[in-house]
């Protein structure tokens, strides 16, 4: 019998070959070839992408991939961006950081999206990873500039610090001065989301001056216009620059030094920022406009003629973000100036106004689609649309990969015919064969979903709001869209039938969100019981869903596939429909002292939870972290639920279970408590309420 080819190469050779394979999909395919390839591959996988942090546990990841250098995690569902996910829902990164601190001492990159990051996490990162290089916090929250100071002070090899769109508690600009004078490795800094009026300009200037490899610098609004020239002067090699405030009283000397600074930036390709624009200062950027490929004017509240004047200078533009002040006429001008346009995003200047305040209609988008053959990605807010416009767009832009249309008033019909927009969107999915992302709006029946199910074979993400008529709509999508990974639906009359009939489809997707639809609690329970590899979570802030009849619709539903089982950090308003819900555990609210909890407690068992709900102090007794189920009587950790604000439980990895006998506080360090779950206890523990006594260590 012939020896298998796979076995004839030494591992090092295979590993070397695998190092050329970067994409996750390909890596996964490689690991499925045979056992030895699986083994070799897992030891040399350096980069991990986890689209849903609850789909897998940190331990599982570490067990399989012991040598990871770069990790990307996503937390909350996308609709959290629009305030549909209540605070405290989850997405805590601390358990991950804590586990990785021990397992991946050579971790270089952490990229997070929609996760809760605390200062403690940032301090842990700063302390644990000696060669840390990249931190990207995309739409994250829960941390302050103190945490950033810790990163700045410790991470000598930091290349990239990107806080884009995060909600940061900005305590002033002094964190920047925590970068030591010897630190010069910064390549990319995006602090544009910081909201304080204070910024340490001198620290910023010095930092920029000594980091000669700086390529991306996005400033926050607090940096005034008259400082830009100085900053750019120190970094003429910048490729991507975001201004702070771009308005001030017009002074010719400020203008000329600004223009001079911009003209010396020969590599500049991307501009953003531009808060509080004074139009007279815009011509200062004209020297770089001809080379610009990306321009973010989405905070620029100037009128169309001024916008057009600027855009006429930018023939190389590939990406434009702009407010609807640009109007149809401005988009028409754009389409004749910027033939290379690939991505267009038009945001509403007055989204809650009852009447249109600008002359921006479907015509603007149509004119761009007619004239810009390379257009791939569209995000467009407008107030009216027609099927004929959508068909025109579809026929002229068959290369669209992302099409997100938001007609501001829900259920708006075709303004010409008063019909639904089914045919228009149908044309989009039929002609744009590579469409990966679609957001629908306007008046839509089940028909549009029929078209989507039939044609949108490459569609990966679909967002639906105020659309459809019956379960048939949802059924079309779930049964037809082969590549569907993420589906998010709000305010649609979709109920149990389509969901239950397509339950197995849900295991092929990352997640499904449905809010204000017609899915009953009973169906959720059924789904949770029948599909062990799905986590079915009901979010309901009005009380436990089992206090109402099974036929009652749930408020919000989030379903995602997971190999980690139900999560343990759910807040009280989230219920899992898992089979073992009898043993369901809710996260306890624990005390937090000065943002650095000295102890963390975990809850279990109904009777204990009763005590906790009465808000009494408690003591947590822990057994050894081993396979035995012996319970010690050593009090190990304690907490106090009477303190406010209560915080949900965080899980941290354990190295040791040492405790300081005198104060009964756990020693500072990493520790973990696992919950009793599914009859496989790792640790037994119980909580005993304490009636009166002063608390140790308080």
């Amino acid at each position, binding site marked *: 019998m012939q020896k298998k080819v796979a076995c004839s190469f030494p591992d090092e050779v295979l590993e070397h070959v695998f190092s050329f394979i970067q994409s996750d999909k390909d890596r996964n395919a490689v690991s499925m070839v045979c056992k030895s390839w699986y083994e070799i591959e897992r030891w040399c996988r350096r980069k991990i992408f986890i689209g849903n942090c609850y789909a897998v546990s940190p331990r599982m990841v570490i067990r399989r991939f012991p040598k990871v250098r770069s990790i990307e995690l996503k937390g909350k569902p996308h609709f959290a961006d629009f305030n549909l996910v209540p605070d405290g829902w989850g997405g805590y990164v601390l358990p991950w950081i804590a586990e990785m601190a021990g397992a991946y001492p050579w971790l270089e990159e952490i990229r997070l999206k929609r996760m809760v990051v605390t200062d403690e996490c940032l301090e842990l990162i700063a302390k644990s990873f000696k060669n840390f290089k990249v931190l990207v916090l995309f739409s994250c929250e829960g941390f302050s500039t103190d945490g950033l100071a810790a990163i700045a002070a410790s991470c000598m090899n930091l290349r990239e610090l990107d806080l884009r769109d995060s909600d940061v508690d900005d305590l002033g600009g002094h964190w920047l001065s925590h970068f030591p004078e010897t630190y010069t490795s910064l390549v990319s800094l995006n602090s544009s989301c910081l909201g304080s009026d204070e910024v340490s300009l001198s620290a910023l200037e010095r930092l920029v001056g000594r980091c000669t490899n700086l390529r991306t610098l996005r400033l926050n609004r607090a940096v005034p216009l008259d400082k830009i020239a100085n900053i750019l002067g120190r970094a003429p090699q910048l490729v991507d620059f975001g201004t702070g405030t771009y308005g001030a009283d017009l002074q010719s000397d400020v203008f000329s030094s600004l223009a001079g600074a911009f003209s010396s930036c020969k590599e500049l390709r991307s501009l953003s920022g531009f808060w509080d624009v004074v139009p007279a200062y815009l011509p200062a950027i004209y020297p770089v406009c001809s080379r610009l490929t990306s321009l973010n004017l989405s905070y620029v509240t100037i009128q169309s003629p001024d916008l057009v004047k600027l855009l006429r200078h930018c023939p190389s533009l590939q990406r434009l973000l702009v407010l609807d002040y640009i109007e149809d006429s401005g988009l028409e001008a754009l389409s004749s100036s910027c033939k290379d346009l690939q991505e267009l995003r038009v945001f*509403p200047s007055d989204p809650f106004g009852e009447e249109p305040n600008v002359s921006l209609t479907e015509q603007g988008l149509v004119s761009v689609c007619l004239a810009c053959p390379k257009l791939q990605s569209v995000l467009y807010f407008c107030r009216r649309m027609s099927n004929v416009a959508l068909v025109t767009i579809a026929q002229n832009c068959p290369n669209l990969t992302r099409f997100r249309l938001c007609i501001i008033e829900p259920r708006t019909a075709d303004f010409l015919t008063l019909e639904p927009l089914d045919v228009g969107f149908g044309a989009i999915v039929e002609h744009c064969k590579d469409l990966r992302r679609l957001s629908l709006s306007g008046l839509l029946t089940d028909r549009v979903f029929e078209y989507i199910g039939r044609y949108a074979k490459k569609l990966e993400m679909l967002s639906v709001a105020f659309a459809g008529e019956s379960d048939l709509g949802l059924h079309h999508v779930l049964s037809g869209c082969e590549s569907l990974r993420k589906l998010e639906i709000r305010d649609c009359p979709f109920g149990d039938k389509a969901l239950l*009939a397509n339950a197995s489809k849900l295991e092929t997707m990352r997640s499904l969100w449905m809010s204000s639809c017609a899915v009953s609690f009973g169906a959720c329970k059924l789904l949770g019981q029948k599909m062990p590899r799905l986590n079915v979570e009901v979010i309901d802030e009005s009380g436990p869903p089992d206090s109402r009849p099974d036929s009652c619709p749930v408020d919000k539903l989030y379903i995602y596939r997971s190999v980690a089982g139900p999560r343990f950090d759910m807040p009280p308003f989230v219920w899992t429909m898992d089979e073992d819900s009898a043993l369901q555990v809710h996260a306890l609210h624990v005390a937090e002292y000065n943002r650095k909890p000295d102890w963390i407690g975990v809850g279990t068992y109904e009777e204990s939870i009763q005590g906790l709900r009465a808000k009494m102090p408690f003591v947590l007794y822990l057994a050894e972290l081993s396979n035995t189920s012996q319970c010690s009587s050593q009090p190990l950790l304690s907490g106090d639920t009477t303190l406010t604000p209560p915080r949900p439980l965080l899980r941290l990895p354990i190295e040791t279970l040492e405790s300081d006998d005198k104060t009964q506080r756990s020693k500072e360090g990493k520790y973990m408590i696992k919950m009793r779950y599914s009859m496989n206890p790792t640790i037994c523990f119980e909580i005993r309420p304490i009636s009166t006594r002063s608390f140790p260590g308080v």
Partner: protein
Amino acid sequence: MEGSVAYDNDLNLKATELRLGLPGTHEEQQAVSSSTVRNNKRPNGESDARNETAPPPKAQIVGWPPIRSYRKNNSQPKKTESEGVGIYIKVSMDGAPYLRKIDLKVYSGYPELLQAVENMFKFTIGEYSEREGYKGSDYAPTYEDKDGDWMLVGDVPWEMFITSCKRLRIMKGSEARGLGCGV
């Protein structure tokens, strides 16, 4: 684009349905409690600029339109301490299907205001004269003052104007010419 399925609202799904539930499990659904607002507006986005009566205030739908909070927060102009609250008035133009809102405090006088309005609606106002109003174009900028009277913009001193102006309307044609006549 052919619609091959003759879609019928009364299609009975029960007969062909695939379910995971045990036979006999009922599937009645309660009325959807949605977070939407039942609104009786015609599904036509255009609004009539001549409509003098304000539409009934609409309750805001949570999370709609889908705009991220940082964008909502960051596009508001930063209020400096000296500014206080602006004086926002609606500006309409005969024939234009949209209204504008402007902050009168931003302008220091009539020329700036009129320039801005010209830019907004892309037209030219004629030259102002006390006797003859706005000559040289078909348009005249008018405003409604606190007493409900329609006045020609420019007739009163600027400071008086910004405190008494309730809204601006760019009139067109004979109505406009009428305003300028007579002293």
